[in-house]
C-alpha cells in the first residue's frame, strides 16, 4: 500500500528513516535537515537541524542509537573518472551559477576505475585500467586558496601528476604483475594510500617513506574495496564474502590480522 506525501516543491536530495519508520529526516536541496514525525495521516515538521555550510548530500539514521549522521558538499567540488581516459574535476562557479569541469588527461591511458580524495581536498588518487595508481593535484585556483605542501609534493597546479605507482612487484626489477586497480583509498592523515587489484593483492604506499610501496599477494579471492579504519588498519572486502582486517606497522610491513565476523559487516566493508 503506497501513500504519497508532498514535502514542498523542491527536490528532496536525501533522506533517512528512523527504526520504526515513524520519523523521517530529509534535506530539500539546501543546507538544513528537516525531521518530520508521523501524526495520524500527516507528516509534521518537528525539527530543523542546521550546521552544514553547504548542501547536505547524504543522511543516515542509526536504528538503535537513534543518532543521525549527515554529510555535505565540501567546497562545492567533485571529481568523476570515466572510460574516456580522463578525470573531470567539477566545481561550482559563482558568477555563472553553474558547474564547470576541468579535465585531467595526461598521462592516463585507460579507464579510470576508482577515485579517492585526500583529506586536504586538493589531491586526488586515481586507479586505472592501465595498471597504475596516480596521485594528481586537483587544485582549482578560482575557488580555493593555495594548498600547503604535503609529503606527496610541493608544486600543485591542476593536473600535476604528483606520483605514479605501477602495480608491480619489488621496484619493477624482475617480473611485474600488471593488474587493474579496483579500489583506491587515502588514509586518515592523507600520507598513505592503499589499493586492491584484481589479482587478489593489497598494496599500501607511503609518502612519508619516500613513496615506499608494500604489497601483499593474498590467498583469497580478489578484493573489490578497501578502506582505512585507523591510521594503521585496513579492512578489505571482496569476492570472498568476508571482510578482512589488515594492519600496517611502522616499518611499512603489511600483515593479515583476522577475518571479521559477518555479523559486524555493517560497520566495516560496505562501500
Amino acid at each position, binding site marked *: 500500500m503506497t501513500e504519497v506525501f508532498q514535502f514542498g516543491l523542491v527536490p528532496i536530495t536525501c533522506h533517512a528513516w528512523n527504526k520504526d519508520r515513524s520519523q523521517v529526516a530529509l534535506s530539500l536541496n539546501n543546507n538544513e535537515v528537516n525531521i518530520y514525525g508521523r501524526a495520524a495521516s500527516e507528516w509534521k515538521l518537528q525539527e530543523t537541524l542546521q550546521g552544514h555550510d553547504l548542501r547536505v548530500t547524504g543522511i543516515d539514521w542509526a536504528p538503535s542509537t537513534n543518532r543521525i549522521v549527515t554529510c555535505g558538499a565540501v567546497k562545492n567540488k567533485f571529481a568523476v573518472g570515466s572510460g574516456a581516459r580522463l578525470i573531470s574535476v567539477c566545481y561550482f562557479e559563482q558568477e555563472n551559477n553553474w558547474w564547470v569541469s576541468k579535465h585531467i588527461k595526461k598521462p592516463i591511458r585507460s579507464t579510470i576505475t576508482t577515485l579517492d580524495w585526500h583529506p586536504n581536498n586538493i589531491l586526488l588518487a586515481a586507479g586505472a585500467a592501465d595498471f597504475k595508481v596516480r596521485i594528481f593535484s586537483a587544485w582549482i585556483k578560482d575557488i580555493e586558496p593555495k594548498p600547503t605542501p604535503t609529503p606527496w609534493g610541493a608544486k600543485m597546479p591542476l593536473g600535476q601528476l604528483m606520483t605514479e605507482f605501477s602495480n608491480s612487484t619489488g621496484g619493477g626489477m624482475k617480473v611485474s604483475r600488471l593488474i587493474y586497480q579496483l579500489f583506491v583509498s587515502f588514509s586518515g592523515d592523507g600520507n598513505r594510500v592503499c589499493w586492491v587489484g584484481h589479482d587478489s593483492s593489497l598494496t599500501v604506499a607511503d609518502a612519508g617513506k619516500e613513496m615506499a610501496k608494500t604489497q601483499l*599477494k593474498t590467498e583469497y579471492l580478489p578484493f573489490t574495496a578497501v578502506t582505512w579504519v585507523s591510521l594503521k588498519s585496513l579492512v578489505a572486502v571482496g569476492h570472498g564474502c568476508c571482510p578482512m582486517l589488515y594492519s600496517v606497522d611502522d616499518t611499512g610491513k603489511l600483515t593479515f590480522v583476522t577475518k571479521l565476523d559477518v555479523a559486524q559487516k555493517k560497520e566495516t566493508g560496505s562501500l
Partner: protein
Amino acid sequence: MAKNTLSSEFRNIDVDQYNEDNFKDDDVEPQSPPIGVDEATIISYMNSGNHADALKLLLANAPVASKGKNEQAKDMALNLVLKVLLSVNKSQMDQIITSLDKTQLDVLMKYIYRGFERPSEGSSAILLIWHEKVYNAGGVGCIVRVLTDRKRV
C-alpha cells in the same frame, strides 16, 4: 555486388589495432627477460636426485613475459619444468612446496596449468596432485593470479 559477398577475408582483420584508444602495454618491458636455464644443469640436478633445486632454479629464472613475447624461451622452459614435475615422487612434493616462496608458488601454479594444456601419458594425474598441494599452500589467490597476470609463463 554479388562478387563482393563471396570474399570473407575481411573477417580476419584485427580491427582493434585501428582503434586509437587501444591500450598498448609495451612500455613496461625495457629490461630483457631472463634467458632461462641451461638444460644440462637441470639434467644433472635430476640425475643426482635433487629435484627441489632443479625446480627452484627453473622457477626463479622463468621467462615470464606478456602474451606473444619470448614464446620460444617460454616453450623451452616449460618442457624442462614439466620434466622435473613429472619425475618427482609424491612423497617429496610437500617438502619442495614448503621451501618455495610466494612468488615461486605463483609461477609454479602457472606452469601446472600450462602443463594441463598439453597432456601426455599420465601427466595430468601427477599434475593434479601438484595442483592440489600448491592450492593448499597458495589458496584461491594463487589461481586468481594465474588467470589475471599479464605476464605469462
